[in-house]
């Protein structure tokens, strides 16, 4: 809804987010979840790279042949 009084008064009447307010807690949880997801993606990529490294040794001749 559009405020019918000056904009600065509108903001003054809005609740201010305090350090331990629910909004702040939600934000921290979101940041933690995103960091966790980022770590999971990195860990998974390390696993894939380890599999690839070994596969390049086991099937080196096959990959070399396919590259010709």
């Amino acid at each position: 809804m559009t405020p019918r009084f000056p904009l600065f008064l509108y903001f003054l009447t809005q609740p201010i987010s305090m350090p331990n307010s629910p909004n702040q807690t939600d934000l921290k949880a979101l940041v933690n979840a995103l960091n966790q997801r980022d770590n999971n993606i990195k860990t998974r990529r390390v696993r894939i790279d380890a599999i690839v490294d070994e596969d390049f040794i086991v099937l080196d001749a096959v990959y070399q042949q396919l590259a010709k």
Partner: protein
Amino acid sequence: MIDHLTTNDIVHLNERTIRAHGGAFAKPENLREEKRLNDITDEAATDSHLRLTDKAAFYLHSIITQEVFLNATERTALLAARTFVLLNGGVFHKKLKVANQNDKKIPKNADGNQEIWLKLVAQVSSGDLSLENLREWFGRNVSS
């Protein structure tokens, strides 16, 4: 729960084999058309391909037949199928075997592990092996 390969994973595999075995990687993703690979990764995750080995067969077959990459498509298809199996705890048999399906050898004229892999890839490329044939072969050569 099965860990499916993403589009980013498969592009990464393409870049890895090009760096290791040669070829050109056209940035940003070396793809002919991004939609083709997105469709493949989406379909692999559906119930149309239930078993681990069915999904591996699908990665190998579809990446090759849809010519997903500008370069190194066959190598990437092989690497994707193998990486997918190993990532999910599957094990390829030490001595790979030619499979039989309706009196058809899969692959034909191959003996020994290296030749079997090469012939599988070549015969998918030439259209001699179908997805059903590859499903049969992976089912016979992978323990999961």
